[in-house]
């Protein structure tokens, strides 16, 4: 059964190991199910799948490209019913799980994550947050801003406000307010999203550019100090709005100005709910 796994996309040998690790957890009864991807020959891309039966694990694949973050399913009743579950993650995904724990949306013991690191294309040892956090902390946030990743941000920052405004006006004018970005984000878990609040109507619901501007602005703001740059929102966007440029810009400044990086400490503070006396004061006259 594992032989089939050798053609796992991008994962190479890691795929076999992953299946074994998942199998061990499932067979050993440590988890009731495994959240991963399944190759569906009829579909163009891998499909998210919940494996409850060891024998099905043969179809288990790793999506190595950034995209769907499986952590988004952890708030589904169907999945919660099967806690503890194992979940296959990339670093950004795993960090979003840490944030979920930190924000009381998930108990650490309910998930046994398996972490795939595409840089080394290996499955890291350990299947609990406690075991995996040291590795995350050793590589992040540094990796978030490695060469190249900040290019789009710095390029925009070099422009004049007017030019930036024109750029975003154009980009955001494509938004059709489908909220796919929200649905794809494991951290957009509000029972009632602010955009659905009608009294007062803080955000204009209609898809005119101003409404879309405020929506995208607030979406990014509500993820400040929380977004772990998994990329799910952008890959879910049907009109290719470069949401990650916003997210990464904020992540970068949050790190620079508050020395804060999310998703590395399940017991850590929430950026916007806390403060330090030495926070920068330049903005205020």
């Amino acid at each position, binding site marked *: 059964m594992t032989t089939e796994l050798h053609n796992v996309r991008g994962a190479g040998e890691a795929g076999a190991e992953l299946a074994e690790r998942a199998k061990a957890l499932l067979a050993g009864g440590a988890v009731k199910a495994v959240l991963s991807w399944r190759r569906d020959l009829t579909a163009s891309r891998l499909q998210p799948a919940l494996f409850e039966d060891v024998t099905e694990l043969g179809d288990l694949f790793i999506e190595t490209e950034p995209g769907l973050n499986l952590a988004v399913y952890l708030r589904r009743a169907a999945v919660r019913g099967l806690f503890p579950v194992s979940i296959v993650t990339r670093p950004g995904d795993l960090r979003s799980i840490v944030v979920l724990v930190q924000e009381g949306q998930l108990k650490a013991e309910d998930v046994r994550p398996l972490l795939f690191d595409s840089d080394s294309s290996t499955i890291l040892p350990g299947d609990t947050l406690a075991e995996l956090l040291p590795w995350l902390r050793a590589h992040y946030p540094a990796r978030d801003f490695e060469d190249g990743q900040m290019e789009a941000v710095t390029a925009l920052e070099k422009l004049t406000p007017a030019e930036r405004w024109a750029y975003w006006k154009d980009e955001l004018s494509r938004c059709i307010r489908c909220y796919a970005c929200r649905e794809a984000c494991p951290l957009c878990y*509000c029972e009632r999203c602010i955009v659905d609040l009608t009294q007062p109507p803080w955000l204009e619901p209609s898809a005119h550019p101003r409404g879309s501007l405020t929506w995208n602005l607030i979406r990014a703001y509500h993820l400040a100090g929380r977004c772990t740059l998994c990329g799910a929102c952008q890959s879910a966007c049907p009109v290719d709005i470069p949401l990650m440029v916003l997210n990464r810009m904020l992540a970068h400044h949050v790190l620079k100005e508050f020395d804060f990086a999310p998703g590395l400490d399940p017991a850590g503070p*929430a950026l*916007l709910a806390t403060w330090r006396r030495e926070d920068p004061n330049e903005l205020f006259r």
Partner: protein
Amino acid sequence: MSRVGVFLCLCGKNIGGTVDVTALGEAARQMLGVAHVEDATYLCSHPGQEQIREAIRTHRLTAAVVAACSPTMHEATFRRAAASVGLNPYLVEMANVREQCSWVHRDVHAATAKAIDLVRMAAARVLRSEPLYPLTVPVTRRALVIGGGIAGMQAALDIAANDQEVVLVERGPSLGGRMAQLSETFPTLDCSQCILTPKTVEVAQNEKVRLLTCAEVESVSGYIGNFQVTVRLRPRYVDAERCTGCGQCEADCPVGKSGMVRSEFEAGLPQSHRSAIYRLFPQAVPNTPVLDPETCLYFQKGTCQVCSRVCPTGAINYDDQPRTETLAVGAIVVATGLEPVSPGIYGEFGGGRYPDVITGLQFERLLSASGPTGGEVRRPSDGRVPQRVVFVQCVGSRDPAKRLPHCSKVCCMATAKHATLYRHKVPGGEAVVFYTDIRSPGKGYEEFVRRAIEEEGALYLRGRVSKVYPEGDHLKVLGADTLSGEPMPLTADLVVLAMGLVASPGARELAQRLGASVDEQGFFTEAHPKLRPLESFVPGIFLAGACQGPKDIPDAVAQASGAAAKVSALLARSEFAREPVIARVEERTCTGCRACIEACPYEAIEEVEVATAKGSRLVAHVTEGKCQGCGVCAGVCRSHSIDLAGFTDQEVAAQIAGASP
């Protein structure tokens, strides 16, 4: 449907002179929900208020906007007027068209235009307002005072004087605190014990005061008017009921005879020692000795038991156990006091290694008639009477490098007192004082210092000492006189360090249990540095004495009486009313992300479990008693599931929208 009445005040010419009130009235009539508009020369006057009451009655108004002065000025006035005719006071909104309009703009057109906007904003807002009712919180009419020093005793006695119950919790075995260790007190030089003892006796005898010694606050829950406090009582091993305080146990204890345990009360002076079963000092209240298992031969080696053999009443009980007691109180006074910084952190003065370099508190004990030397100033090392004593001030004060940047306030006076008393006791002796600045504000204080310099002949040198080290059987003191700019190396027989003062040990932990905050030196933070110096951030928890910052005796006593007055005011009624401006949670949409819990400066929000269709989930819950109505929680809530009564999203949004025509 809502009927808003708009009342326009001309305030004589103050408003009417700059704002075209007629135009304002016409504009107001057009505004959404406005059913009635009228103006008056002085709305705040009695006829003016009557006008408002009348209009509310006759026009059946459901809300009112008063365009007049600042709400800081007359909001209460107009709300009272409305309430008197049955309109909920929180449905009266003011438009500040005087301080923030007519007085700051000269152009009538511009001022009028702005006034119109301000009235529209107020009207829009009040349409979204809901009636609010003052919160009443029940009050447990009993107070807890933590700390049995002079401040704690004063607070307890003053509260008791108002016929209110007090529980006084003292960590040590008896009352008195730091003041009990002092020899004389500045500037009058009256004996500390002599003025303290009557107070301790008064506390012990006051039937409104319940005294718990060897007791520490273990946990605190609840909020203003309704605290539950768990107190842990350490075993005393002596039955207070049976003990007659004869002191036989203390006298016969072999540990005492061996002299191997230094006395904490004597500030650890080498000349001093105590028994394993002891009283801090002869006049201690309560007078029952306490047995210290750490040093007791029976507890350490299983032998001895001398004390129980010699005790005429069989009061010794080696099986005494720790116990806890939970108290219900309505208010808490923190009076945990201070302690001197340890000289250990000052290597340049020997870091406590040189026997003849002692602290000010140790010098107090050398001066004290009840001290180990019977009040004679003798060197710890060889018992000789020092002929030259060098006093070094600001050791552990005004020293940012040691993270002790604060002025300890009392040391200048204490040092002047030490120099004076030393000169009294050793007439031929030289007293040299190295000071940074002499700070002597206070009645008779400056005069006292001057006397020390001019009459007692203490030599005051402005400068810090860089090093002290033994040289033969003397001490070399490397000082400097910064006024002459000369180094001042001196030889001394005794060096006395005026150690800086920080909060007493455990203050930080206690603050955490209380939900209060402390600064870097462990001193409790007051609710407002100028206007609320007696209150902590936590409603119902007050501060007395040196726990809030270094204080001398009169200041500590004054603050204690002030705190007691506040406590008595709180406990005077069985319940108290407060502004209903507090946060409230919409449980349906709260996701329990904890942001508001982290953001609340008052720890007023906690997680509670609520039942849902799918079972149960955790949501935020506001404790009314603790909430101060800042709204920081509402500011961080992404789903806007927590809102602030009186400043709701709806009201603010309406007000913002109202700003545009």
